[in-house]
């Protein structure tokens, strides 16, 4: 969704369309988070089934880019969406490459 994309390119990692999309989703979620919290926490007295349904409806009416479940951690070296190590933000193969090259501080290939 181009309206969520930043007008000026602002990524410093590997870029492909999926990375840009995920980045836009992250920023859209950040902007809409307070707005999402209101229907997520219905008030005390009238937490009836009806108010709950209304709140749910409000959440579903919001754009899907503002939904946190749309966000997926992707590899910053290759843009892959699977097998990404959260601590290093890298896919398993890129992590191995960088670790073997010694580019990741404190990571060493095990051998015993």
């Amino acid at each position, binding site marked *: 969704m181009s309206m969520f994309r930043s007008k000026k390119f602002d990524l410093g990692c590997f870029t492909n369309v999926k990375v840009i999309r995920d*980045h836009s989703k*992250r*920023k859209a*979620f*950040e902007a809409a988070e307070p707005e999402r*919290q209101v229907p997520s*926490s219905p008030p005390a007295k009238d937490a009836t089934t009806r108010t709950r349904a209304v709140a749910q409806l409000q959440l579903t009416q919001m754009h899907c880019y503002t939904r946190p479940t749309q966000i997926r*951690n992707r590899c*910053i070296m290759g843009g892959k969406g699977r097998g990404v190590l959260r601590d290093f*933000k890298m896919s398993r193969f890129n992590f191995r490459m960088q670790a073997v090259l010694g580019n990741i501080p404190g990571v060493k290939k095990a051998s015993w």
Partner: protein
Amino acid sequence: MSVPRARLLELVKAQCQLFSTTFNPEGVRTGNKILRQRLRGPALAAYYPRKMVTIRDLQAEFAPLGLWTEDEKGDDRLEHIAARKARGKGAPKKKSAPPGPKAKK
């Protein structure tokens, strides 16, 4: 000796007034749990590294001083593109106007 419930409730109420907490004897769900949580947005939005200073920026910054930095990667790329173009394998030209109606064969 047991204390009546009403008395206990009064005590809790007074406590709540003193420490400015919400008096909620029924334990009704208030949604405070959600509102009290820290916002996750800033942490999530900071996942990808942002654009830093590039060689092109350096070149633009120091060009007035007569200093030049070689952008090896960029030069390699341009050279590669030029070689492809020479072989007739370059990217097609951008169209200036949207395509018109297709002519019938």
